[in-house]
């Protein structure tokens, strides 16, 4: 019963924008991005750069011996001055402003009704790690590969997208305690 009590109820649907409308807006944005910059959107690419730069500042000699990190982190200044990091910074502000306008800018932990906070956070960390690992394998995430590549009809991006849904649905039943 106590678990029920501190569970945050599902948000009422009308507080979020109609999904098709959000999709149209996102699609127009994706087109504008392609028209202005010649490429789509992205998120995990920024994270790879942040990771590589973090490793470089902690253990530069390690980066010297790792082609993957060296390719991303060096030279130091140019590694930070990449469009995807600007996009990431913009997204942080955009999300914060939207959240603030809708009264959603407040500390919370989103979780299913039957899961404890430590378990939820452990799952978030593990899921994130799997996601980060997979995004590097797939050379992109839902934004940079599925969304952006899908819009320009890249063969690989479409197969990637189907694989994402296959991966999610195949595991959903086994982790249902996290969400349902």
């Amino acid at each position, binding site marked *: 019963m106590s678990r029920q009590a501190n569970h945050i109820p599902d948000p009422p649907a009308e507080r979020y924008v109609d999904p098709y409308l959000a999709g149209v807006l996102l699609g127009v944005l994706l087109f504008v991005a392609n028209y202005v910059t010649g490429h789509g959107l992205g998120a995990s*690419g920024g994270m790879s750069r942040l990771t590589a730069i973090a490793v470089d500042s902690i253990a530069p000699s390690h980066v010297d011996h790792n082609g993957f990190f060296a390719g991303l982190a060096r030279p130091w200044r140019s590694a930070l001055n990449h469009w995807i990091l600007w996009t990431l910074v913009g997204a942080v502000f955009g*999300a914060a402003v939207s959240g603030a306008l809708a009264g959603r800018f407040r500390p919370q932990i989103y979780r299913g009704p039957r899961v404890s906070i430590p378990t939820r956070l452990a799952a978030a960390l593990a899921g994130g790690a799997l996601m980060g690992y997979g995004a590097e394998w797939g050379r992109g995430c839902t934004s940079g590969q599925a969304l952006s590549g899908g819009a320009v009809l890249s063969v690989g991006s479409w197969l990637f997208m189907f694989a994402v849904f296959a991966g999610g649905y195949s595991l959903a039943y086994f982790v249902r305690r996290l969400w349902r």
Partner: protein
Amino acid sequence: MGPLDLAKYGGWGVAVSSLAIGFAFGFILERAGFGDARKLSAQFYLKDQSVIKVMFTAIVVAMTLIFWTSGIGVLDFDRVWVNPTYLWPGLVGGILLGMGFIIGGYCPGTSVVAASTLKLDGFVFFLGCLLGIFLFGETVSYFYAFWENAGFLGRLTIPERLGLSDGVVVLGVIVFAIVVFSGVELIEAWMNRTDHRNAATAGAAVTTAAAPRRSSLPRLAAGLLTAGIGLLVVSQVVPNPALERARSRAEALIASRERHVECAELLSLIQNNQIVLNLIDVRDEADWNLFHLADAKRKPLGEIDPAWIKKLPADSIKVVMSNDEQAANHAAETLIAHGARNVYILEGGINRWIAVYGKGEIEPIAASAGADSLRYRFAAALGSHYAAADPDPWNTPIPKFTPKVKFEKPVVKISGGCGG
């Protein structure tokens, strides 16, 4: 014509535009409810399929706009980044990513949105992503060859793969999307109907996200179908303006005769082993059988299409030839208009070549010059077995010539995508 040249504004052009695009990206995702792991994960339990609706709508809308603008020559699709296809690593990555999604509740972009609105689970997920990327960097050396090569197909679009026109594929994807959306709504309605009933019997408030709401799918579907059919019609009747412009530029370039190389220059190119040379002979098979240059490849005029041109190596020098120049000029124009680089024409064609290197081995016949037909009589259809087809590099002096070939480097592709 897009994409815009941001480089001319210095580093700030990229920074400001990316910042603004990122802002809108984060804003829209948050509005859609994508900063909420419960809403995102609900996709995989079929009750609230907003993820597929938002993502797929965005893909289809952006695709329609991109191919419409390319079709009417407002956007240069060749300069738009298309994620290269790495088949097998992509499938491995996609499956891992989907598993991470259902365990952690976010994807990289949405975890940024969640963290930015102070959701601790989103922030922890974000840190998890960094950890995963770190682990990838530590382990990639064990499977590097597979990751880099397995099923690599380069820049490949679905229309190219299927051999269909862009308009047909765009309309097909639109129809597919509408079918998916309709199916998804039926599933949602069914899942939530049982939910409402349970809630009613338990006397509790209905808490599922997908409260009944009038769907905007019919309007979206109508709009997309109109745009898709419109594109198909437009691509049939309106010649691609970008291609028309490129064609008239190519025509002017050829008329300037800057791309016509003398026989002597071609011979020096043939003897230069440091360059990759594509000798493209556009004559008919009978003439080709009688005589052609060693290492030339025959490609009749009618078979020179965009798909073939795309497959030509970017870093080779292409020399097109016909009996005189007419057909070669025409072929070179098509090649240049479709973006082939380093395209040249053999001045005077095969007739001039034989006049210079035939050495009495091949006899001339009387025929009017310039008719683009062979003016020599051949003892037999020996093809490239005549000495003139491959002049002896040691004993054929190359007279002085004005070099015209300037090697143009392939364009550096705009980098993009998530992979960094």
